[in-house]
């Protein structure tokens, strides 16, 4: 059983009478990479900002490490944030930015950070004839801060740029400074607010790997906010899909991709074909006017269901082996595969295939019963 690090209980937040976060409950574990995924305005950033302490909650409590932190100001919370536009201090250079938090926190919290007993022991070792004073300890702390900074700089691969000015850095480098600045504080939780949004594609993909690796090595919890489902898929241990301030689905990337619980999730995560169908009986459904086998779902007999079939799960076959027959409306070469839109029984389907087909061709289609996903139709539809 993993330890719960953050517990959000019944959180509510409204802006100008509009509910942004609506009775949200979420447990976040130690040492996990959790992604809050959703379209812009869904409440994911607001949730993150409430954990950081920049926004007050209207109802509910935020529990970090077993303590209610609702009234704890941001500076006292054991979390650090990597901001969307980095928020690096323009009047300081790279290393000054990185040591900024440690250097300027209170003396008491510095002692706590490095361990007062450790510091005193170290001071006695280093200066055996001197009296241990606040001044001496401060000196020692300062040395340690710069050692830590060197380590953080190495960790994010910024060696040699220590004395650069912030406005002389590229976007990717700024991103790394922002990361180093946060992780040097060894927070229990690192909050990342769409930190890769401003980078170009190639750099972003590299950063996916690096971030995941960093999280594993440091052993701290990452809470990552993004609207990019691919980003979420590649890095996360668990994904929380949010819409309209409500959690739609919580699960591993695989669960979310393969078994979306509703139309919103299925639509938001990757491309998919969502077709209205009917659950006939166990292991059989009716879809696109055909009865086909299907495995592993339990609904009432003859219940109307949503059938989800991912574009890559369609098999394009010769007409004689086909279950469905469709007419190709468009066919676009996407590099590795062709993206086809075909019309079957007046429903347009997206299909990925490796073989070329031409517009107006008749194609045969088939689907593996194991790759069919069924969803209950939402009440309000």
């Amino acid at each position, binding site marked *: 059983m993993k330890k719960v690090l953050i517990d959000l209980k019944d959180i509510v937040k409204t802006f100008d009478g509009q509910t942004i976060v609506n009775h949200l409950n979420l447990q976040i574990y130690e040492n996990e990479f959790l992604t809050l995924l959703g379209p812009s305005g869904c409440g994911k950033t607001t949730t993150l900002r409430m954990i950081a*302490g*920049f926004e007050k909650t209207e109802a509910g409590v935020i529990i970090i490490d077993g303590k209610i932190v609702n009234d704890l100001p941001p500076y006292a919370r054991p979390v650090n944030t990597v901001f969307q536009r980095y*928020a690096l201090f323009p009047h300081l250079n790279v290393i000054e930015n990185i040591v900024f938090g440690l250097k*300027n*926190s*209170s003396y008491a919290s510095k002692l706590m950070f490095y361990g007062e007993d450790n510091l005193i022991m170290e001071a006695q070792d280093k200066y055996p004839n001197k009296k241990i004073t606040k001044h001496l300890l401060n000196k020692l702390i300062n040395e340690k801060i710069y050692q830590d900074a060197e380590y953080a700089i190495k960790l994010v691969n910024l060696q040699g740029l220590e004395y650069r000015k912030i406005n002389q850095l590229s976007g990717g480098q700024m991103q790394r400074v922002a990361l180093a600045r946060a992780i040097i*504080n060894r927070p229990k939780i690192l909050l990342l607010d769409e930190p890769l949004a401003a980078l170009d594609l190639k750099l972003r993909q590299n950063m996916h790997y690096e971030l995941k690796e960093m999280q594993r090595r440091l052993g701290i919890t990452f809470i990552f906010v993004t609207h990019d489902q691919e980003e979420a898929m590649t890095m996360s241990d668990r994904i929380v899909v949010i819409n309209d301030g409500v959690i739609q689905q919580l699960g591993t990337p695989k669960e979310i991709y393969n078994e979306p619980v509703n139309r919103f999730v299925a639509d938001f995560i990757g491309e998919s074909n969502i077709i209205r169908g009917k659950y006939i009986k166990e292991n059989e459904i009716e879809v696109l006017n055909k009865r086909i086998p299907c495995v592993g779902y339990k609904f009432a007999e003859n219940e109307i269901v949503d059938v989800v079939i991912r574009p890559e799960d369609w098999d394009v076959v010769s007409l004689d082996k086909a279950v469905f027959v469709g007419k190709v409306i468009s066919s676009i070469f996407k590099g590795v595969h062709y993206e086809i839109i075909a019309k079957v029984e007046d429903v347009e389907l997206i299909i990925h295939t490796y073989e070329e087909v031409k517009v107006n061709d008749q194609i045969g289609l088939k689907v593996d019963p194991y790759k069919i996903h069924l969803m209950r139709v939402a009440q309000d539809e």
Partner: protein
Amino acid sequence: MNKYFKKLAIPYFVWLYVLAIIPFVIMAILSFVNNEGLNFSKAIFTLDNFGYLTTSSTVIAFMNSLFYAVIATLTCIVIGYMVAYAIFRSHFKNKFLVMTILILPMWSNMLLRIEALKNIMEPHNIITDILSKLGIHVSLDIAGTPLAVIIGLISTYIPFMILSIYTALEKIDYSLEEAALDLGLTETKKFWKVIFPLSTKGIVSGSIMVFLPCMSGFAIPEILGQGNILLIGNVIDQHFRNMNYNLGSLLAVVILIIILGAIFLVSKFDKEGETLL
């Protein structure tokens, strides 16, 4: 755009050279000669004027100017910062409107404001008169004192300081404040380590806008000092009124050198030369 409108800048170069640079040349020449007004026909080259710079009255006037300008500027920085910061932090919907209303007095005639200040600095004035009719007897007599001059300088020039500090504060990205809090700085530390350093540009340009007129003006010390306090501006003014263009020009050149130093400083701070405003 470049090739079409480059020539638009040329007249401005000419204009600035004629009206801003040539006068300095004339003043510099006037400092080295002895003549009457602008009549150069009987001009004699001389270095005697420079001896005047070391006479005690000139030195005192210069020291006075520096002293009053420094005191007024420092006070304006402290008070102006607090006012600008309070507005910046306030929850008014339209902070800029509040700001402009606050500095509205700037738009009424400066000399008249100084005159009004002088009047109420007298022991018997319109306000004590009204108060005494209400049975309250107060009296304040600071007219003609250094304090009166300093109050006058602050009252007149503090709007510039408030405005320029406020403008600098407005430009600070709010996420930097959040970042500071997030990194463990208390509100007080956040102010000293982030907000204050990022607003120094406003303090510098505000200080220049306060310091220079305080140092060189002559109306405020003349009216509020009632002739007891001579600043360098008063001395220059007297020389020109007495048609002694040589000594007047010499002092003006000295002031100019100080100001050029300030301009140089500004251009160091901001390469584009757009610090002011």
